[in-house]
């Protein structure tokens, strides 16, 4: 597998921060130079710490991500705005002088740690229907709570070629098979479903497609092109599985009759072309239109009464920070083991992963994994199963999660790792 490498500790050693005046010479040993944002158990608000770091980069500030150092801490230039935001948001920061910084860098150099320069806040897009509230989706909730700016885009923008305007794209829990999350038969009377069907059908026709399934396949292909040309893709819940199915099913009818007017191709499974997908292979499709499950990619099958699996806990892998900085960034957390949470797609069966996919978190002993990552062309994709890390049994209609009650959520940290990792400075690829 190819390995992306980043400017590391050596580069960081010559990175000097200033205290107050731009261009000031490095302070004497012991004088205040910058702010350490510890991300271990002592941190009082992990989620807001990401937002504070993001905004600092956006203002042109510089920073470093200290992988595996105290839970994946940040080192920021200690300007007045950062200090003010830390106080307002309740983020724990520590003033750090030159001598302490030297100690810190010594520890990083001699351990499985690394210092990754953060150079630019990525431009973030969230693929979501225009009617979606921020509280419908864990990522938008995390972005709102952390105070990270994002644009909402949907099918018209994607097909108009707007994706290259963004460095990072998150997929709302969309059903890219165009089957309205397969709730059509079981929830046909529900107003939210009727609105969803009307919106998707109208959008498909406006954009020149016969039905939502055809539209979503086109959108899925545009997203793959975006990744191929260097974009960072992050998806959760059912967007992971259905994006892959839509890509593999190019030209194959895998949608139920209620969605596109014709039943699923009886030979659909044999006609899927897994060479077109990013992460999965050889999945078996769920044929029943009444069961809100798409395939056997998902290990938990929350809506399949006879196949539903209990929730356990998943464990984050510990990567070598100096050799594998990207997976290391994606798993920075103050907890190694995190309680699992359901989604329409909760997990990914190991048997269905393509060779070369990096597993970031798994449930020990289970046939499924939780969190995966890979490269495609010049870009990368990351998939996290489940809907809401702090609402493990999420049901339609449940109240939205108030993240001010979960400022230290380890599950939400994984989401925010993904937002920040495109900010890391890249250098030439090695193989």
């Amino acid at each position, binding site marked *: 597998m190819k390995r992306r490498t980043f400017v590391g500790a050596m580069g960081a050693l010559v990175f000097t921060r200033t205290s107050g005046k731009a261009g000031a010479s490095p302070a004497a040993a012991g004088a205040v130079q910058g702010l350490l944002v510890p991300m271990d158990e002592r941190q009082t608000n992990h989620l807001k710490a990401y937002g504070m770091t993001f905004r600092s980069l956006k203002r042109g500030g510089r920073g470093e991500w200290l992988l595996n150092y105290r839970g994946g801490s940040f080192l920021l230039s200690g300007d007045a705005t950062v200090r*003010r935001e830390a*106080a*307002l*948001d*309740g983020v724990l920061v520590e003033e750090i002088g030159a001598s302490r910084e030297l100690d810190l860098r010594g520890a990083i150099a001699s351990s499985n740690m690394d210092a990754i320069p953060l150079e630019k806040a990525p431009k973030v897009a969230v693929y979501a229907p225009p009617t979606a509230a*921020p*509280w419908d989706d864990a990522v938008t*909730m995390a972005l*709102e*709570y952390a*105070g990270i700016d994002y644009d909402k885009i949907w099918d018209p923008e994607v097909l108009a070629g707007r994706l290259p305007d963004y460095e990072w794209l998150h997929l709302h829990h969309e059903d890219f098979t165009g089957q309205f999350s397969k709730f059509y*038969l*079981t*929830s046909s*009377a*529900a107003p939210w479903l009727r609105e969803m069907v009307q919106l998707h059908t109208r959008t498909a026709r406006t954009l020149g497609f016969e039905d939502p399934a055809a539209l979503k396949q086109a959108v899925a292909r545009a997203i793959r092109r975006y990744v191929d040309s260097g974009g960072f893709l992050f998806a959760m819940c059912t967007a992971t599985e259905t994006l892959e199915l839509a890509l593999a099913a190019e030209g194959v009818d895998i949608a139920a009759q209620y969605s596109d007017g014709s039943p699923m191709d009886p030979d659909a499974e044999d006609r899927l072309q897994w060479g077109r997908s990013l992460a999965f292979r050889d999945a078996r499709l769920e044929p*029943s*239109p*009444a*069961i809100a499950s798409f395939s056997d990619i998902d290990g938990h099958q929350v809506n*399949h*009464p*006879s*196949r539903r699996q209990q929730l356990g806990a998943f464990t984050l892998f510990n990567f070598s920070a100096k050799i594998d900085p990207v997976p290391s960034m994606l798993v920075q957390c103050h907890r190694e083991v995190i309680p699992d949470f359901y989604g329409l797609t909760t997990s990914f069966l*190991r*048997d269905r992963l393509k060779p070369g996919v990096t597993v970031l978190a798994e449930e020990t*002993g*289970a*046939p499924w994994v939780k969190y995966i990552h890979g490269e495609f062309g010049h870009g990368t994709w990351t998939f996290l199963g489940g809907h809401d890390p702090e609402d493990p049994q999420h049901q339609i209609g449940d*109240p*939205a*999660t*108030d*993240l*001010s009650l979960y400022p230290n959520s380890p599950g939400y940290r994984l989401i925010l790792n993904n937002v920040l990792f495109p900010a890391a400075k890249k250098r030439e690829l090695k193989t």
Partner: protein
Amino acid sequence: MSGRELLAVGCWIVTSVTAVHAQEALQLERAGRFDAAARAYRAELRNEPANLSLLMGLERMLQRVGRMDSLRPYVRRAVEADPGSEALREFEFHATAALDGADSVAAVAARWMVAFPRSASPYREWALWLARRGDTGAAQAVLATGRTRTGDAALAQYSAQAFALSGQWREAAQGWGVAVAEDRSLVSVAVGSLRRAPEEQRNAIVGVLVADAESAGRWLAADLLADWGRPEQAWTLLDSALPADVGVAIALLRHFADHVARVRTPAAARARGYAYERLAALETGPAADRARVAAARAFADAGDVVAARRLLSQVGIDTSSMSPPTAAAMATFIQLLADAGQVAEAEERYRAWQSRITPSDGAVVREALAWGWVRRGELGRAEQVLVGDSTVGTQAVMGWVALYRGALGEARARFRAAGPYVHAREEVTRRSGMLVLLERIRAERLPQFGEALLAVARGDTTDGVGQLRVVADALPPQGGRADVLGLAGELAARQSDFPAAESLLLAALAADPEGPGAPGAEYALAKVLVASGSNAGAIRRLEHLILSYPESAVVPQARRLLDRARGMVPKS
């Protein structure tokens, strides 16, 4: 419990030599050595191919290691070894369902039906499997066949379950109507199945059940309505469907009262009261009195003084009423009377019953009476009720009475004596806040302040707030003025008088911007601004508060409110 779970329980109680060997496999399983455990189960199954316990162990292990395919030959051998075991047939069915497609499942089910022609189980299991896959039509066809061969009663409930699983709620209700008519013990299962129906389907379900000639359908509908938060409708329905058989009616009423007791709303309490009242009419002797007492208590919980009084008066006539439940109900009733302003009658009843009410209930009743007199403005009678009582709870109430008289020094002493542990948290917080304010005012006597607070206690907050403003103007800025203005502002905010609240809280901040009450006043002001839609102003206030008083106890609340004002978290 499903057939499969029963099967599992049955297997655990099998005692045989195999259990010893199976123990080794179990130990390996517990140690997480799933491959080794699977090998051990396989080895034992060679000796005892039809041992279900071993077979289930092997199934568990193969699931863990992702090799379920290799279970097939063991299942086949087990059925061949003991073709007369229905438990093995059921296992074969579920293993096939997990491993193979619909055709194989159908074939296994057909063999099971032939081997056990009078059993309803193969029809039940096959139909449920089909229903879970969304193939409701096929599931219903299987159940219809099963009913012709084994009779309606055995499969009616599964037919209803299949419809419920596929969201066909009317059909499910019809099925459950038939099932509960056959077997009334199925009512709770039926409730569990139909309870999940979406809001828009519920009236239709009730309509189907009520249209049924059988009363059982109405009993089921009553339970469902209670679960869906419509307890009074539920009672009306049950009342109209009570049978002539007194024993059955009593059982139904007790069940209904227990069922609605799980919901803590006034409507549910009232429905409970009706059920107990009807029960009292059906019971005789002490049982009837107990039902009346329970009814009175339920009506008291619902805030219905008239009904509670009616029931209790019947208890008083019928018995000498020495029983503890009666006394407890009377204590509740007296509190209710006091809260409703009928303090004289409440006190009279208390005097009559005080020897029969427990000491702890008595203390609560006396406090309720004292507060009742305070709300009527009769401070002397409030003190009279409490005289001779030295409990800490009484100290606190006496502290408030002293405060209303303007005796600030005595109030301080009594609040300190009461301490922070007696009464509910809200009351303790209120008392502690007042003690802090009294420390700031320092004066020993301030009758105008007491009168202002008494007006508030009597429900005239507008007048109280006006008087507090006058009192505050007479106090030094750092000697209580800011605190009294802050209190007045919070009282005005509680009344949703946001302009007055904003003006008072701004005045409080201006009077003593660096004082200990400033963070609380600024937080209260921010809340007022959010409530009146001025989020930008609230954000400025909250940022100032957090940055200026980082050590204040209100900072965590201020941060939460700041998130809300900025729109970073959903409105709760």
